[in-house]
Structure formats: structure tokens, C-alpha cells
């Protein structure tokens, strides 16, 4: 995992770690959208990666 210093050096946003947000990791928030994403995965799948 990248350190915060590494992230900041790479010109991506400064992110402050806040352990109080841990509780949201396993909380089923935005579940309706996750269900829709799963439905798209089931019916459409992934696009073809022709370039990277």
C-alpha cells in the first residue's frame, strides 16, 4: 500500500486518514446502486480492453 507521502508526491490529492470512517466499509450504504452495478455486470459484463 502507498504511504500518504508517496501519494502526495505523485500529484494526487492529500488524503488524511480518519479511522472513524472504517465503520462505513462494511455498512450496506448505496446498496441500491451496488445492486444495479451487479446487474450490469451480469447482463452486460466488462468492456473489451483494446488499448491500455
Amino acid at each position, binding site marked *: *500500500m502507498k504511504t500518504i507521502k508517496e501519494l502526495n508526491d505523485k500529484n494526487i490529492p492529500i*488524503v*488524511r486518514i480518519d*479511522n472513524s*470512517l472504517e465503520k462505513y466499509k462494511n455498512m450496506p*450504504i*448505496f446498496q441500491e446502486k451496488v445492486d444495479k*452495478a451487479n446487474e*450490469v455486470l451480469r447482463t452486460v459484463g466488462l468492456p473489451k480492453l483494446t488499448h491500455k
Partner: protein
Amino acid sequence: MRLPRYELKAEKSLMVFEFSSEGPKGQITKLIKFSETTLKGFYNLAFGDKHLETGDIDDTVVSNNGDSEQVLTTVVSAVYSFTEVEKEAWVYATGSTKSRTRLYRIGITKYFEEVNKDFIVFGLINGEWEDFTKEIEYTAFLVRRR
């Protein structure tokens, strides 16, 4: 992206972020979450307002805090952070409503040249993914780091 954006807080794995929107309605705390799906490496991106008293998250509320562009830029910066850790991740996003999906499309369109340098961007239309093209009314978006 060096555009104005809010300071982000996150838990250690960078899957949940929080920031404060500031505008005429005052400070509104917003939560961004990259949720796992049934396919490993495929994440749903969603964000919404956090009710400070109950802690409930609402992704349907219209904040009208006059800073929608800065909010979107902040969400994009969270995508940069998340995909810096999960470099192979697919990130899927759609709006809660048609108008919100349209807002996302306008945001991607406006900064497409910059976003396209770092991400492959797809749009979902008629049940198929295609390379993102400006002016097309996609129903969802999918990005992956180049």
C-alpha cells in the same frame, strides 16, 4: 487534476472518503464509497450527503450548495487516490437520477482531455459499453487506469 477541490479524509484502505462541501447552505458533509461487487476488482462508486445527527447517508438529496463542480472534482480526485492503490480496478458510476447522470457526463466531457490521459473511460448505452464520446447520453460510466 489541479482544479479546486475539497480536502479528503479516508480510512486506511482508501475505499471510504469524506469531505465537507462549503457554500450558501453552509457545510455539508459528503461521503464517497467504493463498494465491492460480485466481480473482484470491479467497484461501484457512489457518494451522498451524511446526516450529521443520524449518520445516515443520502445519495438522492439535492444539496444546492452552489459548488457542484468542486464536489465532482473532489470525487474525481478520490478516484485518483483509490486507483493509485487499486491500479487494476474498474470503477463503475451512475447517477441516482437521469439529471444527475447527465451532470456526471457533463463533468467528464468538460475535463475529458485531462481524464483521458490517466483513465480509459467507457459509457454504457443500449446495453453495451463503448469508448466514451462527448454528447452521448450514457446511462453509466466505467473507468480504469491506463
